[in-house]
């Protein structure tokens, strides 16, 4: 009688349920079985599967003969929900998809709404610069998680501590600017929710120096590390042809030597005015993908520095479109009881202008109408091409919102990367794709 949780006979063969700590018994029992083919279910709660990802592995010994992904455990119906809210409220939903890069979700959605409204060129320059700066900070915080957890999954604990320490500093910037560390709903159709608080740019300049030094130290922990090299070089191989046919974008595509970055090839938010390099590698493997992420950190810092210079010049410029029929009626301000509508605005609508009160009420409860049509607006998120397919029927709510999520498309390549490799390499391959399950399942 074996001591592991349970086993039962099915038409597919014997199924063993393992709960941990009983691997020896299972292994010995399987060893005496006639069949050599073993199917192992990994996840959806396995610590190294990046959230609720389920992998079904068919093994022969330690070699994977077939791999399938099971997804959908984090499906929250965000696309459906947005159809029942105003265009502005949609931001609050979509920011929760890819929870490691919320500002990219917001930007791609807002660019889509602005394109539908035909106000793309009316968005103030200061708003675009703030968007770029916030997105690049977000790229840093997202890459920090990718590098930290990626290293952790391969057994290196220190890089994770260091990466999360740096990420924390970036989240502090988000908190200072938007009031929230994650899911900020900061970028809104027409601009951003509020201007930068005083002293932000000066603080960011100081932070850049600090981050730049620490990034170099962190990189040293991995780049020359012989264990890291052995676990990542030649692992999770996917070449250019594979990436193209599977629609894989982002660092995975750039690790094949293809310099495809939408910030360069199809610029948005004024990225054509910034000086930065597209980082590539030619290894097609896990090592190259992490190397790209490490080097992209420096490029993001370069862009943020240029943003700081631009912001100094644009001090006091508006951060929301001038059209009062679209712009949110009030800027937020910090009062004694927390963040809320500015007191000047409250005084105006409650005390002096009935029309302003009606306008505020209408635009907040009903929202604005968006002319009928459909658009697709892509941005380069830390994971690849994130695109919003928005359809409007001319109403105050979206008719259909669909997101082309980079994690969803890239995760599809797991089978191509892993079949034929060893079981331990699956963890490295999945980590190099850096899927966020909120983005995959939406």
């Amino acid at each position: 009688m074996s001591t592991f949780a349970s086993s039962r006979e099915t038409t597919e063969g014997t199924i063993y349920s393992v709960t941990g700590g009983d691997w020896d018994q299972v292994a010995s029992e399987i060893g005496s079985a006639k069949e050599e083919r073993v199917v192992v279910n990994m996840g959806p709660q396995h610590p190294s599967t990046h959230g609720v990802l389920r992998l079904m592995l068919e093994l022969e010994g330690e070699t994977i003969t077939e791999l399938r992904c099971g997804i959908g455990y984090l499906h929250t119906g965000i696309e459906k929900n947005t159809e029942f809210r105003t265009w502005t409220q949609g931001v609050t939903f979509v920011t929760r998809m890819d929870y490691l890069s919320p500002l990219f979700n917001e930007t791609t959605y807002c660019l889509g709404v602005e394109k539908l409204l035909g106000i793309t060129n009316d968005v103030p320059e200061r708003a675009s610069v703030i968007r770029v700066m916030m997105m690049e900070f977000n790229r840093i915080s997202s890459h920090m998680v990718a590098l930290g957890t990626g290293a952790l999954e391969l057994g290196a604990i220190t890089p994770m501590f260091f990466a999360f320490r740096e990420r924390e500093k970036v989240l502090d910037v988000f908190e200072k600017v938007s009031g929230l560390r994650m899911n900020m709903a900061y970028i809104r159709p027409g601009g951003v929710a509020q201007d930068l608080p005083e002293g932000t740019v000066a603080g960011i300049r100081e932070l850049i120096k600090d981050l730049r030094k620490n990034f170099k130290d962190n990189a040293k922990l991995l780049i020359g590390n012989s264990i890291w090299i052995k676990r990542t070089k030649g692992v999770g191989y996917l070449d250019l042809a594979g990436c193209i046919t599977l629609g894989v974008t982002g660092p995975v595509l750039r690790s094949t030597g293809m310099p495809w970055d939408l910030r360069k090839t199809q610029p948005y938010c004024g990225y054509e005015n910034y000086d930065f390099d597209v980082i590539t590698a030619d290894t097609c493997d896990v090592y190259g993908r992490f190397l790209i992420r490490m080097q992209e950190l420096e490029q993001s810092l370069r862009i943020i520095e240029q943003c700081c210079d631009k912001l100094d010049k644009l001090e006091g410029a508006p951060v929301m479109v001038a059209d009062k029929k679209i712009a949110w009626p009030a800027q937020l301000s910090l009062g004694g009881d927390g963040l809320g509508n500015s007191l000047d605005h409250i005084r105006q609508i409650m005390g002096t202008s009935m029309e302003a009160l009606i306008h505020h009420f209408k635009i907040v409860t009903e929202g604005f109408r968006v002319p009928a049509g459909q658009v697709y607006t892509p941005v380069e998120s830390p994971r690849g091409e994130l695109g919003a397919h928005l359809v409007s029927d001319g109403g105050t709510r979206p008719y259909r919102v669909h997101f082309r999520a980079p994690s969803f498309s890239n995760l599809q390549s797991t089978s191509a990367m892993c079949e034929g490799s060893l079981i331990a390499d699956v963890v490295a391959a999945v980590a190099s794709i850096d899927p966020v399950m909120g983005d995959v399942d939406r």
Partner: protein
Amino acid sequence: MSEQKGSFGIQGTGDTSGYGGLVRSSFSPTSAQKPYGSYFDEVTDELERAFPEFNDAIEKVVVDRGELTLHIKRQRLFDVAKTLRDTETLRFEVCLGVSGVHYPEDSQRELHAVYELLSMTNNRRLRLEVSTPDSDPHIPSLVEVWAGTNWHEREAYDMFGIIFDGHPALTRILMPDDWPGHPQRKDYPLGGISVEYVGATIPSPDNRRSYR
């Protein structure tokens, strides 16, 4: 597309809370006239040259907000897609995904599948739109042309019930396998239904017990 008067442009009851039932109006974009502008003329001309049955396959060409959309008959989708990928001057080598849209008022064309294509070679984008009647929701699968559409087609099937003929394993991808209905269709409510799992039922919000 109808013309909008004013930003608020109230018609009917003006109820926007959603509790009075959402009113949806259907719309259909008009076909564009040549010249289309930008690279759109080049793309359509090249496609016409490489695909002789162009006029039979393309229902209409829509140019809106700087984006090109080709509405294609579903019987011809596979051939058009293959031509777009393989013709040297077109080279749309990446399909970014499939997005379903449900237009219940668009009689005999209720379900639409929207494909976003990208040509990295020429740095161009193109959208294909295919419609199918709700009573016969079949569209040919493009997995053979772009392997990456595999999961996207499964999602469109899961959410809209579009059946992609020729797909290697068309199963649900986000919802549980035994889920009834296709959630992102317009005739599927947002909430107020009991959530069912195998062996358990979670009642809808209005049927749950209240905590006092």
